[in-house]
């Protein structure tokens, strides 16, 4: 019944002990941000924010690649998925993200060949077994997922596949943290960095941020004990007036990251400016295919009229993603915006803050 290297980090007594330690050591109020949507999901699902003392405020960050995929990119995906010659492969997360007027689920219902895959490598296999069709893979993600998406392109190239392409929308974490820190009204005093992003990229790129903005950055995992220990490490630094990069996820994160994954990522992708849905354009915060791999770029392979698409004016996801607004405080939360009829991505993504609050807390606090 138990999962090794997972369940040990969900132990109730140890969780209680860590909460007490945080209570004892936090002598002043501190505002921390967990960057990664997966961490947000875990925090809300396990009620960690309810257990923490009032001195600690957790602000939810923009680390949800589903949430920040530009609305125009979703529309591009819908257009491609509707083409009869295309098999559109996607992670399950993207299926109900609203574009300008509908989502992939609707396109599938109308006959679009939309298939959920667990791995981008499965989409490559599909292209090999379906030579008469065009296989397009919706390649979204942060640095954790980008190397696997890159590998898919590398494999397609190696196997000489002429019917595989990706619709790519990748985002990078450090520029987003910098954009948040440099905003004049930033309240975040300490960061819990995304553990799995760092398993790939390492910790070095966070050093300049910690130094320049004088904020502690603690690389943190996803299980309750790991999140609490990341929070404790951050609090300890804040109480001591320190601002360093600290690795609280050392069982999987080395300071140099994963050189093989980084090499693959750099071989296939290069850094470019990127629009974040709800946040606007952030320089050097995205990844695009290198010109050597242009034939695997779905935006070049298939023409489209879709350009920049404006956001729904009612949706306040920008403020949610910046941590300026809690989901329950949004005027549309639970009324005009629900998981069935989302105005924006944070309400439909599994790790979107709005979805997490709606699902685990309901419309009103339960306790």
């Amino acid at each position, binding site marked *: 019944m*138990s999962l090794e290297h997972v369940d040990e980090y969900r132990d109730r007594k140890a969780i209680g002990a860590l909460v007490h330690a945080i209570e004892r050591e936090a002598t002043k109020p501190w505002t921390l941000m967990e960057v990664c949507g997966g961490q947000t999901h875990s925090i809300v699902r396990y009620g960690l924010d309810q257990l923490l003392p009032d001195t600690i405020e957790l602000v939810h960050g923009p680390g949800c690649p589903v949430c920040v995929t530009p609305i125009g990119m979703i529309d591009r995906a819908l257009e491609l998925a509707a083409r009869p010659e295309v098999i559109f492969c996607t992670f399950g997360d993207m299926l109900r993200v609203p574009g300008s007027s509908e989502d992939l689920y609707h396109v599938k219902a109308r006959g679009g060949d939309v298939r959920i895959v667990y791995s981008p490598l499965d989409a490559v296999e599909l292209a090999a077994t379906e030579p008469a069709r065009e296989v397009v893979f919706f390649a979204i993600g942060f640095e954790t997922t980008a190397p696997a998406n890159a590998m898919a392109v590398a494999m397609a190239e190696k196997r000489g596949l002429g019917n595989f392409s990706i619709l790519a929308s990748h985002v990078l974490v450090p520029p987003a943290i910098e954009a948040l820190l440099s905003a004049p009204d930033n309240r975040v005093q300490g960061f819990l960095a995304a553990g799995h992003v760092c398993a790939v990229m390492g910790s070095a790129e966070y050093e300049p941020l910690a130094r320049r903005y004088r904020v502690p950055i603690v690389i943190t995992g996803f299980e309750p004990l790991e999140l609490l220990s990341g929070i404790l490490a951050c609090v300890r630094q804040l109480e001591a007036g320190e601002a360093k990069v600290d690795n609280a996820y050392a069982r999987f994160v080395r300071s140099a990251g994963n050189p093989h994954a980084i090499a693959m990522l750099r071989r296939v992708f290069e850094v470019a400016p990127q629009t974040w849905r709800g946040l606007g354009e952030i320089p050097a915060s995205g990844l695009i295919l290198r010109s050597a791999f242009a034939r695997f770029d779905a935006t070049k392979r298939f023409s489209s009229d879709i350009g920049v698409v404006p956001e729904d004016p009612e949706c306040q996801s920008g403020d949610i993603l910046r941590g300026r607004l809690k989901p329950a405080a949004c005027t549309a939360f639970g009324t005009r915006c629900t998981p069935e009829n989302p105005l924006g991505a944070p309400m439909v993504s599994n790790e979107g803050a709005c979805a997490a609050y709606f699902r685990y807390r*309901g419309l009103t606090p339960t306790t």
Partner: protein
Amino acid sequence: MTLPSCPLPLPDSLDEDALVTLAHGGGGRLMRRLIEDVFAAEFDNQWMREGHDGAILEALPGRPVLTTDSFVVSPLFFPGGDIGELAVCGTVNDLAMCGATPRYLTTGFVIEEGFSIADLRRVVRSMARAAASAGVQIVTGDTKVVERGKADGLFINTAGLGFVRDGEETRPSRVEVGDAILVSGDVGRHGVAVLAAREGLGLETDLLSDCAPVAGAARALIDAGIEVHCMRDLTRGGLATALVELATSVDLCLSIDETKVPVIGAVRGAAELLGLDPLYVANEGRFVAIVRGADAERCLEVLASEAQAASRDALTPFAPALIGEVRQAPAGRVLATTTTGAERLLGMLSGEQLPRIC
């Protein structure tokens, strides 16, 4: 002079390579042959032999209880069961959840043209086996054949009739504050077995679906003199959905400790890997029992011995668990205490749970 041979010869019997065609649904000789060869051969009883428009049944003691369900599972054959077994167990279980003894089933088939007759026979044999094991008879049925693309292979509907003795009806209105909430075994096996059988996710496992009739266990509780207030079998949407539906019907709070809900390793592994919540993963052979608080321990004992008997053939034995209690407030809600001690709300999913990577 040689006579021209008929371009559409009728086969003497349906051979194993034969496919169902639109002609088999036409009401003519081919349809008769299909019914005799495939259905009547397996569902053999006085009503099927009578072959009338309806089955004129025995009046049995107790109040009649009626239920219906349609089955569209894909793939049709999965580890531990198939659509036929599901079609019988699902409806038998719904009757048992009302405190009724299941007796009679009807069955309707919508078959896509091109469906293999051999597969149809397999499904029908499964139904006959499941019906025999549940002690029910399939007394009347219907068959339609539709064009290619209109039925995903095979759809089955079953309706079930059972009888419940006075005082033994189990229904939401009997649920009270202080009642104990139990689950008859570990959750999520069916959903994971089906996911693993579907190509595309690449999961490998020996796990079998938990598809099984629960009528025996439900009966055992009532016969043991346990004051059973309500039962609900778990199907699509899993344990959480069943609890949410109940909480809404009874307008009370169902409070559970999610660390007490049994989940076996294979289900946990698949769920964690794909980002699914085991509490929402499908089951087809488990039920929730809400009983008078004082009867909780005894209920657990009875469910445990039923589980032991049923586990004899299963890869991994299963065991019931006491998972929570009924409270006054917040009314209509399901609360789950998590491993951290904090509570989370269990709500309705908007649609089906999809694998995720984020």
